[in-house]
């Protein structure tokens, strides 16, 4: 079993319909209160999320652990 399957979600953020820059800023804000290695569960109804969430993770260096729209799990990486 992979580590993320047994690791608890540290925080859940329902982004609602936020998209584009609003979604990206919200994810960054949600991760800011977590420690490195902790997991954020994101739920979003943004139709662009399947492309934008992985793209934002690659840009910002945080790890996208799973992506199954509308749910995503992101592992916070170091600053």
């Amino acid at each position, binding site marked *: 079993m992979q580590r993320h399957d047994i690791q608890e979600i540290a925080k859940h953020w329902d982004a609602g*319909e*936020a*998209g*584009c*820059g*609003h*979604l*990206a800023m919200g994810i960054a804000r949600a991760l800011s209160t977590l420690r490195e290695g902790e997991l954020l569960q994101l739920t979003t109804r*943004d*139709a*662009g999320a399947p*492309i*934008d*969430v992985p*793209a*934002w993770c*690659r*840009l910002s260096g945080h790890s996208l652990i799973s992506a199954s729209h509308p749910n995503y799990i992101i592992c916070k990486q170091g600053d």
Partner: protein
Amino acid sequence: MSEQKKIVIVNSHGLDDERSSVAWSIANTAASSGMEVTMFLVSSGVDWARRGAADAAQLNPLDPKISDMINNVVESGGTLLVCPPCAKVRGYSEDSFIEGTVLAGAPALLEKMTEGAYSLSF
């Protein structure tokens, strides 16, 4: 053959603004020159990807038909990124848009730029 050059063009103008014709003309030229074209449509610019909306638009009589330019960009492998909130606020859904359209926002645009894409904004 050298690596394919990339360009992203941000167009925020709609069917009533001649600058849109310039944006599509440059996108069309880039596609015809072998560049990988990403058109990022925001604000009123999302209307260009709406099914049927561009068919009758002709903002500069000396430019090619805009629908022909859009079709050429798509048929050349170009991507039309449509900003999701800009589409949603206008009541458009994924079904509203022509083939080649992808709903994606700032992160997708920025990633293209980090890949070395040239950028233009209208």
